[in-house]
């Protein structure tokens, strides 16, 4: 089962056939006939609901680089097109005027955010990581055992992120930097 963007055209075709049989009355105005859903020619992108862990299927309707609507995916054997109130509202989660769209920076003891460039923020963060890591890295315990870690930097979050994102977080923070407190929502 799949949404057919052309369905209204098919309906129109059937209607015009009916009209040719004997009747001269046109019950639909030209405006009505030309009307069609907004998503008619939209690209349908397959996605998965970002809320709870049931994993309901989403259809994301995209036209001209904008998301028009997000609906349940009828194909999904998990959800068969149904969604709960949160899943149904995914559109507003993603298309929302309250979203932060620039990097923001708050200096120590400052009273306001300042907007900064993403590049500047990334460079500053890399510098902070290096400095804190270098100051707090421990190679060996006093008893001689090797640990190669830092407890000076911690990380929290992952259960709302992708599998691949979680993988890279652990790989860089643990395997590269030696951070040990790398955690997510599994414990709350």
């Amino acid at each position, binding site marked *: 089962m799949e949404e057919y963007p052309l369905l209204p055209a098919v309906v129109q075709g059937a209607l015009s056939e009916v009209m040719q049989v004997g009747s001269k009355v046109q019950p639909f105005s030209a405006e009505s006939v030309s009307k069609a859903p907004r998503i008619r020619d939209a690209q349908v992108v397959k996605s998965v609901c970002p809320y709870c*862990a049931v994993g309901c299927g989403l259809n994301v309707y995209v036209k001209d680089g904008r998301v028009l609507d997000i609906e349940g995916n009828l194909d999904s054997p998990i959800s068969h097109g149904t969604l709960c109130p949160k899943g149904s509202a995914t559109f507003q989660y993603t298309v929302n005027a309250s979203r932060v769209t*620039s990097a923001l920076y708050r200096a120590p003891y400052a009273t306001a*955010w300042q907007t900064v460039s993403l590049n500047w*923020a990334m460079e500053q963060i890399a510098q902070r990581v290096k400095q804190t890591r270098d100051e707090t890295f421990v190679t060996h315990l006093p008893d001689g055992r090797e640990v190669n870690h830092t407890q000076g930097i911690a990380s929290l979050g992952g259960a709302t992120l992708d599998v691949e994102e979680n993988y890279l977080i652990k790989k860089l923070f643990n395997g590269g930097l030696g951070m040990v407190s790398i955690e997510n929502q599994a414990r709350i």
Partner: protein
Amino acid sequence: MPGLGTSFGRGGATTFPQDLVNSDAILIMGSNMAEAHPVAFANVVKAKERGAKVIHVDPHFSRTSALANLFIPTRAGSDIVFLGALIHYLLENHAYFHDYVLSYTNAATLLREDFRDTEDLDGLFSGYDPDTESYPDQGSWDYQRDQAGQPVIDLTLQHPRCVFQVLKRHFARYTPEMVEEVCGVSREDWLKVAQTLAANSGRERTSAICYAVGWTQQSKGVQIIRAAAILQMLLGNMGRPGGGIMALRGHASIQGSTDVPTLYDLLGGYMPQPAALLPKQGTTHHSTPMATEGAHPKAHVGPSQQTLQEYIQANGSKTGWWSNLPAYIRSFLQAWYGEAANVENGEQAYRWIPKITGDHSHLVTSYTMLDGKVKGYFLLGQNPAAGSTNAKMQREALKQLDWMVVRDLYEVESAAFWHHGVEPVDPTTVKTEVFLLPAAASTEKEGCFTNTQRLIQWRDKAIDPPGDARSDLWFIYHLGKRLKELYASSADPKDRPLQALQWDYEHPASQAQWRIKDEPDDLLILKEINGYYVKSSEHPEEVYNLHNAPHVASFPALKADGSTACGSWIYSGVYPTAENNRAAARNPEGYTFQGWGFAWPANRRILYNRASADPDGKPWSERKKYIWWDSEEKKWTGFDTPDFPLNKPPDYIPQPGALGMDAHSGRDPFLMKPDGKAWLFVPKGLKDGPLPTHYEAVEAPLKNALYRQQSNPTALYFRDRTDNKLVQLGDKHYPIVVTTYRLTEHHVSGPMSRWMPWLNALQPALFAELSPELAAERGIRHGGWLTISTPRGEIEARALVTRRMTPLRAGGRTVHQIGLPFHWGFQGKSRGSITNDLAHMVLEPNVSIEEAKAFLCEIRAGRLP
């Protein structure tokens, strides 16, 4: 999820929600499935329409209760008594599935003579050390072993030291009278549950159990899940259609973030993080149990894991599936460090992996943060300032940081704590430097979520994220690139792991259709997680890199010789060839829809499904057939991927001294376990005991009626922290039990819902549910305000006076309980008190989870001052 892992072998739900339609009875406990997992609950409703009996046991009447055949209100924190009495009932009435229990569990295995049960020690097991409040020596919990090290068995189940008999004695005091006394449930209601489960299990019928954080967020959460596991083993429901234990998880990829993982104590695929543990310190004279470097320098805990060989020795197994650990860890090192992992057969790369020295979990780390020992913090889509227990303390901890990075879609509480809060905040006193970087939404990046049934599902990217918003993949990748540059010229040995880290995920193709051109190639990372060949098997001189390497087809191909790389062995098979991303497979056909996504491991939808056939390999019944032995084809076959060596016949008997999978007979379905059996009794792997035992919640209105030991003796109490005050037993100032829960219309602490007018219109404000009796006692009016207080904090909420909360008669008195959602905070478009300001921070010993589902409070009419 060590409750399921130690019982059956793997820490994941054993079945899938769509199979619940095949259940004859469904017990939902510790979950409001209709409201927290509504679309999965549709399967429960379908099962009911097909005649299944649905039972809901919960402190709070909800839509789940409304649609159940039977709802039983119970006292929060008493689950093990309810379940223990069911176990007792099955054993006493010979209502267990004898053939299943005898063949597929460790019921027949003998325990050591020096093992002492809670029966003998009034609520403690042998090996307890009161000074450290732990079981540092668990040797007495082991099996009796013969000279070859094999467990000693009594197939008659009559030996007094066999697990079956120990189980009988252990649960003897979990009687219907105790259910009335402790749970506040009438024996008639409880008996209906016992009879329903017994009547709907066996050869012809199966029952399922569904749970969620109503069980895990308790100071003995793992042992509650263990009790459910024992129940399902005795009923013979594991590995069978309509059976199993459905763990309902709460975030889109929380299973994935446990599998891959972003957890301190695990590497990919449930391999333990290497440890150099410091001893747990005595509870009377320390500030935090967080291991402090330099303390007790001579005392070691556990076997040494300083070398790869020692790590394998400590964590592998000679028999069963974990005998493959050498191949998995070596392939993992190869995925992280590439060619450098070949030095000294992987020993050098292993030494680079950071060693844990204690409990570095989220909540324990927040104490060290409060003490100023954590300098920098990354928050990647998590909001502890409102979403973690004792949230007020969490906000204070953030103020002790030097710097932090918050990545989210909105300015959540954890990004705003320095200028705004529940209490007035003066920014000029807060030193923390904060970077708030906008994140991409799930529709603005491609990648996989792993859902509650271990199903990995791929999402395509719909559009670019707005402005400077980027995926977390982009953030980590580019941060890694910058750090590698900063450290490129270092000659310090501590920087070599970062220099050697394999970090090339550049997109091979042009990103013409997207505005953001430097997004890393997600598929390359999925390939690394799946596994790839480092060398050609035919031409070893031919060496590959991630970009040009052939994919590994599945985990049996992984090798311990450095010829394969794999980031998480259990995901191996998700991307077996360059053309076949099985996470993106979208064929919904068939009972187990094997062509839709990929369920780890090996696309199995029901785990341990060898147990759906009898010991001879025949289905237990035609009605419940699932996987069986095809004696003509000489292989296992059925509706799913068999969870068993495909060609091992049911009559296979291992040679004495056999190793690896050869050590398991053709009748041992739990192949992750060294003995191939499901564990009624857990001889190894849990910190608080081999059998579930009832302890009261840390804050409870009643004395423990079963043992002198009041609450979990191994919980992490942090007794001398002044910022985590607890209600003592008998304190009349806090007589009311609180249990917390989700609403359908909001998500956790609200970062994904409270900025959305649609959802706020449906569920505009925090409320508390309380019974008409309690409301009358305290003069609280329906729709009016009430204030809720604990020693940690005070909040206000609207009163929902309702019969959905029932006063219970337990311990000879009336126990009042209130229900409290926890979705609000001081940011967003809908604001309200933070429920987590009330909760304490005593943690479960195995998983360091807080107890948000049962604690004590007081209430009064009116608002906060």
